[in-house]
């Protein structure tokens, strides 16, 4: 053990300005319990018994052989379990056996190597000295000198004009690099204006999501709920963007259950009401309707809206009620919008109230 040194003696005392111990309690040497030094080595079976060592050697080799079997097995599985189009089970078998083959190949190597290291490789702990992280005083002095020389030979601090203009130039050069990212966003689009309007217009029919079949008022029975998109949505180039704003939930309540505020008396049609499906919190679809309570629940963050009270928030992080789409029926009895929403749908944004 002499070569590893006993603690305390092998330590080279780096006498640098000793670091403050702060509020640490540093006992005088006489009060410190002595480090007992390394505990004696506990030999392993492989150290004592050559037969056991030989057995461990065979074990490791077998694990490596197992790994080879796994690799070959994985290649075999790739061929033996092809994917048959339309058969999900073939995908399952392919994934399973290819994966297990690869896993065996990996685990064989891994377990073998670890077993080798633990059972057979030299098992004594070794000790290595630590040095304080800071450089030695001479190294630090030389580093300081290097900076001084650099400064002296370039005149960095002496020629202030050069230094300051250099700093200015370095501060400015990344700016064009930032500017060029401007066109990540659309060039001539007023975001506020875009977010404010949806596809709904006076007379736009309410159609079923996703098949686009128009909805007759008579189809909407009491207690039913429809997921609605505006007519013609599927033909739009920007169908997803439009749908993300225009999606609507339609349900029929008893007219006496609705608490209608002044100015909205004719926004429903015999108890059929349409509300934006886009949550006013962060924009998830508010898709869960509880028929009995007439509550809408957003599955993302659990905001709840009361349809009998014009979709006002009764629980959860949302603040504003879901915007209501004013509806009526056309001459053929199909439900149509009276106009667009009267306010922006979806999550709040800074300029939302700024018209």
């Amino acid at each position, binding site marked *: 053990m002499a070569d590893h040194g006993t*603690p305390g003696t092998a330590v080279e005392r780096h006498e640098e300005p000793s670091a*403050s*111990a702060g*509020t640490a*309690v540093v*006992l005088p040497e006489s009060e410190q*319990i002595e*480090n*007992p*030094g390394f505990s004696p080595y506990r030999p392993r079976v492989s150290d004592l018994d050559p037969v056991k060592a030989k057995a461990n050697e065979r074990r490791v080799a077998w694990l490596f052989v197992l790994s080879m079997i796994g690799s070959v097995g994985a290649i075999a599985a790739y061929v033996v379990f*092809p*994917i*048959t*189009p339309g058969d*999900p089970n073939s*995908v399952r078998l*392919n*994934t399973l056996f*290819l*994966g*297990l083959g*690869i896993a*065996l*190949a990996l*685990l064989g190597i*891994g377990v073998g*190597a670890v077993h*080798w*290291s633990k059972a057979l*490789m030299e098992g004594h702990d*070794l*000790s*290595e000295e*630590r040095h304080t*992280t800071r450089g030695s005083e001479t190294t630090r002095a030389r580093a300081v000198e290097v900076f001084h020389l650099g400064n002296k030979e370039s005149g960095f601090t002496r020629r202030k004009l050069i230094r300051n203009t250099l700093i200015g130039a370095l501060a400015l050069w990344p700016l064009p690099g930032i500017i060029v990212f401007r066109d990540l*966003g659309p060039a001539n689009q007023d*975001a506020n204006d875009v*977010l404010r309007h949806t596809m709904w217009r006076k007379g736009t029919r309410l159609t079923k999501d996703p098949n686009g079949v128009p909805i007759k008022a008579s189809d909407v029975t009491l207690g039913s709920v429809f997921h609605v998109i505006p007519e013609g949505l599927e033909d739009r180039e920007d169908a997803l*963007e439009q*749908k*993300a704003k225009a*999606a609507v939930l339609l349900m029929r309540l008893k007219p006496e259950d609705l608490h209608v505020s002044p100015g909205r008396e004719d926004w429903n049609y015999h108890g059929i009401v349409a509300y934006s499906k886009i949550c006013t919190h*962060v*924009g*998830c679809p508010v898709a*869960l309707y509880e028929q009995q309570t007439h509550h809408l629940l957003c*599955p*993302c*963050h659990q905001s709840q809206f009361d349809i009998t009270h014009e979709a006002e928030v*009764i629980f*959860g*992080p*949302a603040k504003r009620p879901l915007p209501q789409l004013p509806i009526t029926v056309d001459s053929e009895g199909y439900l149509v919008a009276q106009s667009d929403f009267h306010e922006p749908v*979806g999550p709040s944004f*800074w*300029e*939302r*109230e*700024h*018209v």
Partner: protein
Amino acid sequence: MSVDTTAPAAAPSTVETGSDDQLPPGRGMRLTNWAANYIDERTSISGLVKEVGRKIFPDHWSYMLGEVALYSFVVILLSGTFLTFFFQASMAETVYHGSYVPLEGIKMSAAMSSTLHISFDVRGGLLLRQIHHWAALLFVASVTLHMLRIFFTGAFRKPREINWVVGFTLFVLALAEGFTGYSLPDDLLSGNGLRIIAGIVEGIPVVGTWITFLLFGGEFPGTAIVGRLYTLHILLLPAAVVAAIGIHLLLLIINKHTQFAGPGRTEKNVVGVPIMPVFAAKAGGFFFIVFGIIAVIASTVTINPIWNYGPYDPSPISAGTQPDWYIGFADGALRLVPPGWEFLIGPYTVSLNILIPVIVLVLFLVAVALYPFFEAWVTGDRREHHMSDRPRNAPTRTAIGAAGIVFYCALFGAASSDLIATHFGMSIEAVIHICQAVLILGPFVAFFITKRVCIGLQKKDREIALHGFESGRIVRLPGGEYIEVHRQLSDYDRWRLVSYDDYQPLMLRPNARGKITNRARLRANLSRWFFEDRIAPVTRGELEASQHHGGH
């Protein structure tokens, strides 16, 4: 010595085969020698081997957590590279015609369609996708656990504060990698995740709307976001992760690993196994074990079955869906906001229901990043620390950590509020209110309990160090008295219990100008809070006294 150098000259016939007479090198050995020489003459790599080849690594199970993180990242790189050959990061609309019949003829983006192609048409594609996803989940999990290990053992102390910050950066990068990757398949679930991100960004005052349009190239969802996230996911973020890992490991080598207290171990040495060969075999083998376990999971357990969710559509959603686990705490923070946190300044909307959770999360993360500097300021300890603390021996730090974990878990639990509600038959309101209560009160309770438990354990350690442990052997004394014999610990075992750093509260004293500054007062208060309740390590005098009295 002269014999050695002259031997070849004296026997010219053997010069070519060199030291044949001692160790005849085989063909392979000669090739190895030649190659080693060839490389060294062009790189002077022998210096590196000399420096690090026999570096010592201490052994402890908790030191493997960082290794798991490193290895799962390698698995992510390997499996991810495979996926890039098949994935199309495009939101161009296509109609699906592939092996998965239920989605036949459905409109979807090329990203979704190519992900289905990987899953159902490429042999091993689903396996690699699942390896990639499971490895990513494991990566963030092991990074988190590794951070907790560093925290609770005090391994962030001088000289490792910078490496803590580098590691923290890696944690944030891992979250970013996770989220960008999660969003790529453009399925219903990831699309709703992006919808939430868009909604959050819109909630930023003044510039939120504009930034949303910048990110998405216009209105949500647009056709740009998947391609942009892909660039981040496979180029920018991995480059940053690799660079940070490089710095992290370089500093690890410079600082050397910490070690737990043990016989023979001091602040001035590092005791363990050398890189060549034991650590290399163990760590190398461990890489294959980590990879192998990920492969077993990936081949038997489905993850992110996008074919069940379908392509992104802004209208449908399924109840009870969960984000990847590491996003949970952020999602939970959004859920815990009470109703009505939004107001107007003139015509402008301030969405506190979004800003507050975001600010709280940022502050939480900043607190994590800065903790080492805070503790160093409180203790004023400028010495280097290379011994891992046992968590009980730093009761206040451990209690702070426990409080942080409870805080995190309250947010994390809230992200599953709907599932908890349905699973336990509770109302959603009750679950949210419980999570809110745990978020606010839980950390205090956890702090108090943890600190008491730590101090209790320290007392027990002290007792055992001084008086030994109950041997279970009952002895009847000549006088008829029964006693249980206490057995003393060996010096080696005792050393583990008695060697730790101890601090006392800072005494508040006027400075040179005779004044007590507020800063000093704050520091003294914090120091008192940290160290007022403390169990000092056993001293030599106490030990000798107890041994003279004979352990009773």
